[in-house]
């Protein structure tokens, strides 16, 4: 366990300077934010660097913050260095009106469906993704259901039998 959060941070700062911001460590996991167009570079560096070796993409998904104007959608990557057993998390913020983020599929195969899922739920447009179509929902769906402005079920629906519900 030689690879500590300090070392990772140091290495990243060496490489990217102050482009990476918001360094925090909630519950011991190093978290930072990268600019939107730098995400692939950061991922590639984390993957290739002989010391860092974050070669396992644990998780990739998005969060919608309607309040943050201009960077409503956050794409969150969880990476794992299996050898030293260190996890880090980094985020990329995108504008909800133009949610273009570079796709990580070239580095991690596993990102393929996770990005499709993120697109499906939040409408994040992953540039460079080989097959960016909905994965879980029906293709005809015309909105991104996990965004905060959409209620859990359609308000206009008629199929819900009111007699069957409590409250």
């Amino acid at each position, binding site marked *: 366990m030689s690879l500590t959060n300090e070392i990772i941070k140091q290495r990243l700062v060496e490489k990217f300077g102050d482009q990476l911001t918001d360094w925090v460590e909630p519950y011991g996991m190093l978290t930072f934010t990268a600019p939107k167009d730098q995400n692939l570079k950061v991922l590639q560096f984390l993957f290739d660097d002989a010391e860092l070796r974050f070669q396992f993409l644990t998780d990739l998904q998005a969060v919608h913050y309607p309040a943050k104007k201009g960077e409503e959608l956050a794409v969150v990557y969880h990476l794992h260095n*299996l*050898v030293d*057993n260190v996890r880090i998390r980094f985020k990329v913020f995108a504008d909800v009106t133009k949610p273009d983020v570079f796709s990580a599929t070239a580095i991690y195969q596993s990102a393929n469906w996770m990005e499709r899922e993120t697109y499906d739920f939040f409408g994040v447009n992953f540039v460079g993704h080989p097959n960016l179509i909905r994965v879980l929902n029906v293709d005809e769906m015309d909105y991104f259901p996990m965004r905060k402005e959409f209620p859990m079920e359609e308000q206009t629906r008629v199929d819900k039998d009111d*007699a*069957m*519900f*409590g*409250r």
Partner: protein
Amino acid sequence: MQALTNRVKQVDRKKLSFIESLYLPAIIKGMFITFSHIFKRKPTVRYPEKTRTFSPVFRGLHVLNRDEQGRENCTACGLCAVACPAEAITMEGAERKPGEEGLYREEKYAARYEINMLRCIFCGLCEEACPKDAIYLSETFAPANFQRKGFIYGKEDLLIPNPVTEPEAYAKAKGGRVAVK
């Protein structure tokens, strides 16, 4: 790939020996195993003739409880409805009128108490949420039915029999077990 932990154990994946590769030994062995099962005791529970006893904490059909004097315990606080993840409980509260003290224990009571058994997932959160010892899940599993409307269980279906007026049915509902206070 280097070992990540010091607990690695390679699974045993040895090549087939010549005898094993003749198919027959494993088949014969397997056939002896299945044959030996002819003589095993059959674990089948012959439902509906026989039933398996459920655990005392089984989560089945709900029961609304009464106290010893046959008064309903529910006070229509609505915690069960809030706690229900399936939103299956409908409740309408009403104030107890004078003269109804023999019917309801508290000042408020549930005038309408309905559980939609088709929605209910029998998670037991309502039982946990009840602060008045009023709703319990019983050891009866919910029966099947032909029509949808048969699954809205109202108060009359859920209430435990009144110990004063119907003592036998009450004893049956209690299952002979002494209530723990």
